[in-house]
């Protein structure tokens, strides 16, 4: 300070400096408007603003549903922080949370209902949308639907949805399908999300659900894929947990993380295992092998040899009669048909990992209680996904983590009240017995010709309709999904959508909207009143409410109300049902009635208090497994012992009421599975190693993970998100295709070169960055860019979209879309 004072006694002022530079013409301008003369008065503080209002709402940028405090001053949203009183956010948010205001004020938003005037459809066709009234828009939809129903072709109307939230949006869809009469209302996106995980749990412990986790009390985390510190839900809470288990908890929780490239999760863990894509199941099998041969399994849960002598020796079969199984079914059979040969040395050959690392991981996991093995898309997004998922989940059974403190469980639903109107009272003969009843779903979910055991097959909708197998759709409506872009090989969807009457309800100009005949734009999330029960979290029930922080900026309508308004215009009792239902606020008020008898821990007991606090929740979780016995909450503790029948009804919902390593669910469908997959009927019900099938024709695996700033499609047009998006390499506006230096050099590719990625279905381009953290047989880039629509910042941003080179291949059992299994070739562009 002293120096400045002595040298610049004259106190050169800003104004004087500007005069001087103007005189000499030495402005040295960089970019726009540098050193423009500024009237000093302009830089004075602005007059004090109005009062700041805080609205309790919930975020919308991933499934987690974090409570948010939305700060509004003079009617403008300018800040979003985590709600301190919300059990998921606890005052915190992930990096996406603060982006909400940018979504609200996105200048490329749709501002009201519109219809298409250009009949030609294609990437390069301007839809030439013109504004219309809501009445015209809704009547147009209803006229089409009524006409289809009159022709007996109501099944040719499909409604596809992605991120559904609660009973006042996605929850209304099934009723619409049943009353109107279409098996294709709704088709969810779960097969393009993580159904492989859900089916793996269903096949083994009988719960068709994602797991809830007690991370706070676990001492070991074994993570396969999932991107725990980038994208795994609830990301915000995962990081809160991470800070605690890694920075404060005693003892510190140890972590081994498995993925195909180095990411922040692996970097922050104790051990990073860079595994060959599609081989996670082999690693899990070898870990199970070590747990058995070294006698590390949890005897109170699994059971033991009758005489206590461990007979699990590599390569040797065991007499099942010598073992008493407790809460598992088929352990010894599994050992005999599969596991006895799955040694760490064998797995090292399959996974390319070092045998010593596999053994060390197995010993740690097998000796540290409680421990959690978790996996999500990646591990099971391959043709062998069901086996990979089952093998990993079985590790949880071997160490006794199911329903244990520090283990994993399943999420309870909220105490919602019933809807005010009963749909059963409004079923006409068409709804009950119309010709639509005989039609399969367009995606062949639940069909022997398609995916008998899948929950949804949205990725098949476009190709099936295009091929007319089982039939061609007529009209499709999208809610919070954009499969024209997100589906694997979406190019086929573009052809399919060109044939159909398309209705999009997104507020954003995405690719599906570019094929739309009608735009019925939803509010953005800060403008909505919308319920949302929690995604699997810590087990006890939790239901959030999204509360509008501002009045809608434009002429938009909450999707739930759009649906109800369409419903009112359907002829016959369907219309009467929706007239009786009224609007979504009625629905939400009815849901909240359920809280009267079950007030939340935070005092929420009705609609008004729910709206004020933004969340209802009620602890504790009701069940616990302790030392191989199951207990129910008795009001004070987990003291009420459960019978095996109760365990089967509430917790281990398998045919046997046990954790089924020999899956009864798969066994029931063994004929179909064997016919469609060529698997051995005698063995296909056990977790096992099967070589994955990699389509695409290339020589490099391609992995396209979600990264921290991926806001489920909404982030693609946000300059702040774009500026920071950073898988590992990049940031500052650039997303790279990560390639191992040797792999790149062999192909004549220099660091930073523009490269072309090709597969059997397409090719895209982007910039390469050498990265030693990516496997030499794999390229990695995030699923985010490469939009050809979606707004001025999103459009044509490299690298191209991974979907355009991803072959549409799914796990035949789970229906999981295998996003990370295509093999591609890479060359200098």
């Amino acid at each position, binding site marked *: 300070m002293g120096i400045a004072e002595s040298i610049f006694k004259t106190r*050169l002022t800003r104004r004087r400096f500007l005069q001087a530079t103007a005189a000499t013409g030495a402005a040295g301008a960089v970019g726009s408007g540098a050193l423009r003369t*500024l009237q000093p008065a302009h830089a004075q*503080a602005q007059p004090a603003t109005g009062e700041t209002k805080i609205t309790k709402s919930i975020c919308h940028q991933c499934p987690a549903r974090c409570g948010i405090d939305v700060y509004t001053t*003079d009617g403008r949203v300018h800040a979003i922080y985590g709600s301190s009183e919300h059990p998921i956010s606890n005052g*915190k948010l992930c990096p996406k949370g603060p982006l909400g205001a940018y979504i609200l004020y996105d200048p490329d938003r749709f501002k009201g209902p519109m219809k298409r005037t250009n009949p030609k459809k294609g990437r390069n066709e301007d839809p030439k949308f013109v504004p219309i009234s809501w009445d015209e828009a809704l009547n147009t939809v209803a006229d089409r639907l009524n006409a289809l129903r009159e022709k007996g072709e109501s099944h040719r109307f499909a409604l596809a949805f992605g991120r559904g939230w609660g009973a006042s949006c996605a929850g209304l869809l099934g009723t619409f399908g049943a009353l109107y009469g279409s098996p294709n209302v709704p088709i969810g996106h779960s097969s393009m999300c993580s159904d492989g995980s859900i089916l793996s749990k269903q096949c083994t412990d009988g719960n068709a659900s994602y797991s809830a986790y007690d991370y706070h009390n676990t001492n070991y985390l074994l993570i396969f894929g999932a991107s725990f510190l980038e994208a795994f839900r609830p990301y915000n809470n995962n990081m809160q947990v991470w800070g605690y288990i890694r920075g404060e908890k005693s003892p510190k929780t140890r972590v081994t993380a498995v993925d195909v490239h180095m990411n922040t999760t692996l*970097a922050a863990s104790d051990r990073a295992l860079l595994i060959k894509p599609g081989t996670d199941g082999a690693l899990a099998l070898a870990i199970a092998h070590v747990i058995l041969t070294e006698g590390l399994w949890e005897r109170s849960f699994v059971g033991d040899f009758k005489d206590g002598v461990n007979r699990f020796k590599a390569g040797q079969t065991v007499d099942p009669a010598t073992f008493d199984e407790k809460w598992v079914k088929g352990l010894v059979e599994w050992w005999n048909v599969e596991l006895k040969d799955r040694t760490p040395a064998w797995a090292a050959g399959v996974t390319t990992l070092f045998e010593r690392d596999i053994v060390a991981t197995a010993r740690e996991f097998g000796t540290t209680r409680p421990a959690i093995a978790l996996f999500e898309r990646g591990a099971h997004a391959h043709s062998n996904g069901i086996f990979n998922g089952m093998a990993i989940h079985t590790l949880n059974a071997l160490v006794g983590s199911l329903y244990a403190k520090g283990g994993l469980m399943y999420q309870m639903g909220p105490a919602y009240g019933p809807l005010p109107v009963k749909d059963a009272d409004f079923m006409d003969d068409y709804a009950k017995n119309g010709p639509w009843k005989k039609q399969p779903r367009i995606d062949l979910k639940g069909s022997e010709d398609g995916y008998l055991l899948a929950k949804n097959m949205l990725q098949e909708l476009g190709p099936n309709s295009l091929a007319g197998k089982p039939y061609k759709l007529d009209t499709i409506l999208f809610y919070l999904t954009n499969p024209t872009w997100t589906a694997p090989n979406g190019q086929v969807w573009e052809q399919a959508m060109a044939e159909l009457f398309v209705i999009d309800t997104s507020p954003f100009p995405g690719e599906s909207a570019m094929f739309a005949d009608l735009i019925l734009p939803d509010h953005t999330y800060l403008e909505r009143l919308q319920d949302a029960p929690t995604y699997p979290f810590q087990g006890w029930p939790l239901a959030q409410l999204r509360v509008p922080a501002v009045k809608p900026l434009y002429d938009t309508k909450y999707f739930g109300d759009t649906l109800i308004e369409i419903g009112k215009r359907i002829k016959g009792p369907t219309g009467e049902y929706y007239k009786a239902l009224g609007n979504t606020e009625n629905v939400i008020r009815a849901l909240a009635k359920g809280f009267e008898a079950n007030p939340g821990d935070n005092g929420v007991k009705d609609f008004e208090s729910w709206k004020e606090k933004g969340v209802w929740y009620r602890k504790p979780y009701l069940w616990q497994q302790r030392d191989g016995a199951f207990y129910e909450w008795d009001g004070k503790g987990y003291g009420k012992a459960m019978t095996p029948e109760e365990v089967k009804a509430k917790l281990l919902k398998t045919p046997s009421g046990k954790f089924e390593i020999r899956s009864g669910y798969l066994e029931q469908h063994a004929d179909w599975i064997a016919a469609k997959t060529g698997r051995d009927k005698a063995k296909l019900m056990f977790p096992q190693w099967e070589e994955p099938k990699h389509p695409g024709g290339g020589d490099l695996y391609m992995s396209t993970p979600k990264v921290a700033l991926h806001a489920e499609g909404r982030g693609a047009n946000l300059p702040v998100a774009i500026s920071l998006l950073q898988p590992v390499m990049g940031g500052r506006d650039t997303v790279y295709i990560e390639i191992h230096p040797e792999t790149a050099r062999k192909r004549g590719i220099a660091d930073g070169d523009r490269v072309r990625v090709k597969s059997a279905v397409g090719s895209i381009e982007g910039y390469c960055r050498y990265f030693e953290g990516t496997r030499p047989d794999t390229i990695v880039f995030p699923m985010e860019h490469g939009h050809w629509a979606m707004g001025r910042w999103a459009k044509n941003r490299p690298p191209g979209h991974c979907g355009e080179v991803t072959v549409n291949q799914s796990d035949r059992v789970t229906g999981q879309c295998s996003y990370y299994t295509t093999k591609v070739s890479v060359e200098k562009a």
Partner: protein
Amino acid sequence: MAKWGMVIDLDKCTGCQACTTACAMENSRLPGENWQDVLFYSEGRFPNVSIKWFPRPCMHCEHPSCVSACPTRATYKEAEGGFVLIDWNKCIGCKACMVACPYGVRFYTDERPVVAPDIRGVFPGKDGRSWSPPYRGPQDDPSHGVGIQPNGVVSKCTFCYHKVSKAPKGVADLDEHDPATKEFTPACVRMCPPKARYFGDLDNPASTVNKLIADKRGTRLLDHTGNKPQVYYLSGGAAAAVPSSRETNKA
């Protein structure tokens, strides 16, 4: 008088960049104008590779070289609190401070936009400010470098001066979990999901920040410059780390 300091526990930092987006939101930053940045590095050879990351706000140095370099005394050390701030009414945009700062945490307003098209063209400035988005924060205090700056000046992290300077007098720490201090806690600290950040009075022996610096061996970045940052890092060898000269591959 308080001397505000920040502690960043690198054992807990997950490299998520919530600090960066929280700062951008609270302080109406341009895309990529990261007053609070997280820098990524990698080293090693496959399969023995590590990634490291380093969260970096302004260090609000006790002996700030930027202040010494400023020809107009636009950048200054605020006696109360120890904030290093810029008076935009005095800044002439000469960038001498940017050269003088060893930490690279200062930004000149009129650079080319990080992300094209330039969002300043979408939300053009009013009242002499460089831009004016609808989501701008209500705070506006050009003499402390708070709010949206005019063209032609340098800007930087203020330690959320507009919040911290209003904190109740005499508190030891500004903790986001304490209802009495939540609203006065800097945005990056308040948002940080793994709670890797702490903010408190370095002159108060009862503060948590002082305890953490002592117990967990707080270090300051580039201490040899003599700038004496008021930001301390705790590192037990986690992936988030103060970058060493070993790192070869800058992300």
